[in-house]
């Protein structure tokens, strides 16, 4: 993990100058668990705010929650739990040096992540159509594509050393594709003459008091985590394709899977809170 690193052989842990491979594995594990703790605190604030405002504006929150479509929520829950399951299988495969299976399972997880985002878009679009979305849906689609370009670009960048990609090319491609895809998405999904003013009118506020504000903050932040997780999984898939992992070295698989489980876990709390409790 430093500039003295030699290009590692397939299946061998990278040689680092400051610690042995066992310590490196333990450190990575402790590091990711600490990071997950910070993530929990990050979402913890939103959960706290949700609890407080639900207590303050119970009626409005109930009314708001009814406007959400629980079918979409359930579908997404199933998708994420399934993807978490395949992620766990991938870790097991990596521990048995089965790179092809790692590749296969994480690929399924990636497809699930994309499906999740599509379902979320459809859901948001319905809200936007009713004027419950705080800005034009085109901006959202555009932002997603920009983030996706960077996340996948980062995945290729991270795998470049082992897979032999040119880092300069990757950087240029991901920046250009972020701009181009973001622009195209904006053109396609932008709704001309749309009414994005219903959100936050006097009337809207009286009915929904903050419910939708929190709903969007929580689900946007979660969607961002899905996209970052997607990048992580892509990175592992790229490495697995080159037979990077073995029973001696599977840290990236395990770390990414742990992150993915957290993304799943947070959704498992978001879903009942937002869709069912009301």
């Amino acid at each position: 993990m430093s500039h003295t690193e030699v290009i590692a052989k397939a299946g061998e842990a990278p040689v680092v100058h400051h610690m042995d491979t066992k310590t490196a594995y333990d450190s990575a594990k402790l590091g990711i668990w600490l990071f997950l703790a910070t993530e929990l605190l990050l979402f913890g604030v939103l959960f706290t705010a949700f609890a407080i405002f639900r207590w303050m504006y119970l009626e409005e929150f109930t009314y708001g929650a009814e406007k959400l479509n629980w079918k979409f929520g359930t579908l997404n829950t199933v998708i994420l739990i399934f993807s978490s399951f395949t992620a766990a299988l991938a870790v097991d495969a990596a521990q048995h040096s089965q790179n092809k299976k790692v590749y296969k399972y994480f690929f399924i997880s990636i497809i699930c992540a994309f499906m999740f985002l599509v379902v979320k878009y459809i859901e948001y679009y319905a809200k936007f159509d009713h004027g419950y979305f705080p800005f034009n849906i085109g901006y959202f689609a555009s932002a997603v594509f920009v983030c996706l370009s960077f996340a996948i670009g980062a995945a290729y960048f991270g795998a470049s050393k082992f897979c032999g990609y040119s880092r300069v090319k990757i950087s240029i491609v991901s920046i250009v594709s972020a701009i181009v895809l973001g622009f195209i998405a904006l053109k396609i999904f932008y709704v001309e003459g749309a009414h994005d003013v219903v959100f936050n009118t006097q009337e809207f506020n009286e009915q929904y008091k903050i419910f939708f504000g929190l709903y969007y903050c929580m689900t946007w932040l979660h969607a961002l985590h899905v996209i970052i997780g997607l990048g992580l999984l892509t990175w592992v898939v790229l490495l697995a394709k080159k037979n990077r992992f073995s029973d001696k070295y599977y840290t990236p698989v395990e770390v990414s899977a742990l992150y993915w489980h957290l993304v799943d876990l947070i959704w498992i709390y978001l879903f009942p809170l937002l869709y069912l409790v009301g």
Partner: protein
Amino acid sequence: MSENIKENEKVEAVEPKNYLNHETGIWSWLTTVDHKRIGLMYLFTITIFFFIGGMAALLMRAELANAGPDFFSPDTYNTLFTLHGSIMIFLFIVPGIPATMGNFLLPLMIGAKDVAFPRLNLLSYYIYLIGALMALIALIKPFGPEFMQTMLSSLGLTGPVDTGWTFYAPYSIESGTAVVWMTGAAFVLGFSSILTGLNFIVTIHKLRAPGMTWGRLPVFVWASYSTAVIQTLATPVVGITLVLLIIERVMGIGIFDPSMGGDPVLYEHFFWFYSHPVVYIMVLPAFGVIGEIIPVFSRKPIFGYKAICYASVSIAAFSFIVWAHHMFVSGISDVAAIVFSILTFSVAIPTAVKVFNWVATMYKGSITFETPMLYALGFIFLFMIAGTTGIYLATLAVDVFYHDTYFVVAHFHYTIQGGAVIGLMAALHFWFPKMTGKMYNEFIGKIAWFFVFVGFNLTFLPQFVLGMQGMPRRYFDYPIEFEALHMASSIGAVVNAFGYTFALLNLLYYFFFSKVKAPRNPYESLSLEWQTQSPPIHENFEEIPIVTDGVYSYGKKIKGDH
């Protein structure tokens, strides 16, 4: 640096390779993953921001020296104190000791070759730089031709922030200034802080040298560990809070805006949930520094080693449950206020334990008064004042009066400047030979200390009195009765600034131009970082040391016990 080896006869023909010269060129610095170099880069950057923030403070003091408007408009004054607060807190003192001295010393002290994630360490430095850049961009006022002005305003760059560093809602939602950029900067800087903290925790857990048990760790490591825990666990909270504030400003989701049913007090809760622990991020490492310096210059083992270590950890724990003492007058319930008041009082216990232990360490020691020791003693004196005035503010009834007066200003400057900054100065002088391989001028160092110490007290002692007389903080102007004390405070600020400049010039000059090489261990300290050469080699140690004894066994033969 030029090679001036010939002049020093004692030194071998070729200067030995160390972390400063084993690679050269600016690129080798910018891409380094060496914790020592990253520490120095942090040090360089935060020093620049220290002077920018200090300049803002001096401008404020210039304005306040006399009653009535002198140099600035009230609006400019508002942006000045916001600038001073934000830069000093987010850009200078939060990374202040942990990211500089912590980065440099932690692996050395525990006998490791580097931190656990060296590349993450470099990344956190660059994240810090991005945040710093955003904070500077936030200062831009729309300028130039009209199209440029509209472009800048549409980017949210509508002039320097005037909300104060706390960004309290609802004003931060309404303010027509670049709040989005400044809070965005604080959010990004928070990331840097989290990554540093995470790195340190893992390093201390996993990379200790053989024999370096938890019971033998230097107190600085314990303090850094406690700091890292706070950094990792408290920072995400303020991060997301500031993001909510940005979303609130941009889209009006109504969480903090009372006109839409939001709750501004909730913002204060979230904000102080981080921003109270953050003062311990600033001052805990300084405690650690003092704990290192005092035994060395008293030639005695530190008194109550375990008590000091546990005090660090318990201060970290307490720091999470006292935040609402910033909000006694914000309309929280009486029960909550009483509970938080009691909890706040109890922070005094571990803090006082530390002070007692330092004093007891000095008792009957062979004390010498080198510059680091002077700073350490100054720290104890100033921090005592800070702590005892904190008791006033924790007292509910008294706080109602003192809230938002200069008393609070003086109190937290005694903690932050008298604690954290003086602690950083002590650390800089103490570890200067180790970091640079040179010695600073002891005499100039002492003179500079004198100016810092006297200037600091002259600045802030009058502010206690002003606060007691009812002078509110953040005010641009005041009645003529307050003028004498304000004048004294302003003079003190100049003396203080002079002291810091003098001290830093001393260090910088002897870093670049001194020909005298520092010995390996000029203070005959026993802790690990002094056992390697000065400056350390790239890999820190020739071979990983095996620790057989505690690091404070001064004045006794090594017995193999702690």
